[in-house]
């Protein structure tokens, strides 16, 4: 065997053990009626599991909730993160202190954030409803109409700092010359932002969006700690649904097939996002 192949052999072996084998085994499980409480009685199902989940309304409901959550949370985080990063960059007094405070939510474990907001937003004991009531505002945060939106807001609270961090790094890496030229030419702040900052930040925005979107697709802890997917099924997300099917109801074959469908959906969205963001302004699709 050639040296170069021998050199990559250890890495290939590690990758096979930790990625290829589990994925292949998951694929095998997804085409079988594999139940954890009947592990000696596994029957081949073919595309049976896939056919079932694709015609199963709770699966589509969970997927729809997740997509709404991802688009809602990531869009707000993008806008807020960019705005805060621009403000922080211009901050003169105590910029490092402000950055440290702003980044703090990111370091709290999501399950703790979920439990925290479960009680902060509680209608009877919560601090937030208490002060809102003093202003004459009453909001049913976890009612059927607002529960998913409340989870989005919690995610925004926790993960906007990540966007800030990414955009601050991006902004500080931008070359100064084009901005100085624009100032000399008398360009307004908006024009400078629209035609210089934003285009030059495209690659940073793309990376931040992909990382946050992939992470948001995995939303589980807030649902687990706060709503359990309710009221009804209004906050049931896909990962919570997969977890329940696989590990609470022991139907691992069905859970694995859902996971593969989810991977396909995420892949399509990421590629679409990548293509859209890589296209230069004015370039034909």
């Amino acid at each position, binding site marked *: 065997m050639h040296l170069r192949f021998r050199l990559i052999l250890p890495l290939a072996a590690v990758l096979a053990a930790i990625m290829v084998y589990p994925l292949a085994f998951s694929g095998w499980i997804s085409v079988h009626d594999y139940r954890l409480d009947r592990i000696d009685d596994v029957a081949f199902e073919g595309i049976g599991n896939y056919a079932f989940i694709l015609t199963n309304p709770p699966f589509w409901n969970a997927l729809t909730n997740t997509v709404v959550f991802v688009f809602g949370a990531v869009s707000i985080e993008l806008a807020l993160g960019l705005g805060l990063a621009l403000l922080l960059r211009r901050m003169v007094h105590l910029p490092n202190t402000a950055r440290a405070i702003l980044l703090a939510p990111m370091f709290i474990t999501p399950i703790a954030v979920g439990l925290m907001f479960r009680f902060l937003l509680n209608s*009877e004991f919560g601090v937030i409803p208490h002060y809102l009531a003093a202003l004459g505002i009453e909001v049913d945060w976890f*009612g059927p109409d607002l529960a998913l939106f409340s989870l989005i807001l919690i995610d925004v609270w926790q993960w906007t700092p990540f966007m800030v961090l990414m955009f601050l790094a991006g902004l500080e890496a931008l070359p100064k010359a084009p901005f100085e030229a624009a100032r000399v030419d008398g360009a307004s702040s908006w024009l400078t932002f629209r035609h210089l900052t934003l285009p030059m930040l495209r690659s940073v925005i793309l990376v931040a969006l992909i990382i946050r979107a992939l992470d948001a697709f995995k939303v589980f802890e807030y649902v687990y700690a706060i709503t359990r997917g*309710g009221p009804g099924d209004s906050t049931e997300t896909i990962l919570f649904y997969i977890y329940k099917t696989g590990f609470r109801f022991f139907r691992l074959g069905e859970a694995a097939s859902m996971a593969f469908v989810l991977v396909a959906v995420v892949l399509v969205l990421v590629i679409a996002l990548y293509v859209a963001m890589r296209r230069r302004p004015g370039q034909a699709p």
Partner: protein
Amino acid sequence: MTCIRTALTRTALAGVALTVAAQAAAAAEIHIIIEEVPEYDIVRTLTDRFMEEHPDITVTFDAMPFDAMRDRILTSSLAPSATYDVIIVDNPWMEQFARAGYLLSLDEMIAAAPDFAFDDFFEPLRDVATVDGTVYGVPYYNYALGLIVRQDIFDAAGLEVPTTLDDYVEVAAALTTDEMSGVAMQPQRGYKIMEEWSNWLFAAGGSLFDESGAIAINSAEAARALELYIQTYNDAAPDDSVNWGFDEALRSVASGRSATMLSYNWMLPTLNAPGGVAGDLAGNFRLHEVPGGQAVLGAWFWSIAANTEQTEAAWTFISWLTSQEIDTDRVIAGGAPVRSSVANDPAVWEAGFGEDYYTTVQGILEDAAPLATGIHAEEIIEIVGTSLSAAVSGQTSVQDALDEAAEGIERIR
């Protein structure tokens, strides 16, 4: 000379082998997965006593929240040898775990210990522990539901504690003021709403399945139970509490914001404990049977993992801890009764929480029924609990919710 040397060597080797075997026997160690609840604190204290009396057995606990337990039990049960030699099993899991082969039959061990008096455990608890005539668990503690009320409020208002569903709906509404809700409900989707509403279902004369085993969740009785439940939620529960579970309801009652709740019978000592969660309100709470008389039964059981190598030590521990003598100490320390003789013991009444509490618990346990049984119990609870939540939050009508629940159960059976 050679013979002597050989004999000496063999003797020495035999000695070493015996020593190793003796050490192995002496060093029996059992690992137990357990839920981190007040009962665990009592068990841990008793276990110290067990290890003093049985220096050859070491017991270690892996205590964790309820939500983490099922995954761990599953992993341990599927492994070639057990991580956990003793498993505590919740009642909806019993049949599924037993049929999956995760649990060891306890029949022979119970039969070999006549003083153990297995028949002394309350019958509904023994029924849950028995799958196809084989016993797989020994009751640990019960969490059957009762009606916990602020007795001082009832007495001051001259109100009788409700014994029927209609009375409960009426009294809960009558107790509701701007400062206080009549009832702290737990309509959180899934297990919580199912656990609470099933008491209403029983009181209305309904059930999940009829006597022939056919699905009966969309019966007229179930519809009435759900309509009354929703009416009470709208009229007498705290505002915007559709997502409330146990923690929120307990805080509401303990802080004087709600007058009643349907909750675990062992919450009474917790609420009445001086300096406890209820502060100055401690002593004002009283336990009654749920309206309608038949409560939802919840219980945990001690079971031995089928893949353990420490069967003998595990049974020694379980049979010691659940013996009449030690169970008496557990209940006096605040544990929820599982043995009839212990709940009827005047010494327990005196040293524990009074005759009234224990006789009420007995009344609750005599005819309590589990939420769901069978290998699909966990999933049935989730399906019905989701539909109920949708109805309570106004996303669907009562009959549509119950029909949807019936279809869901049919799909998985």
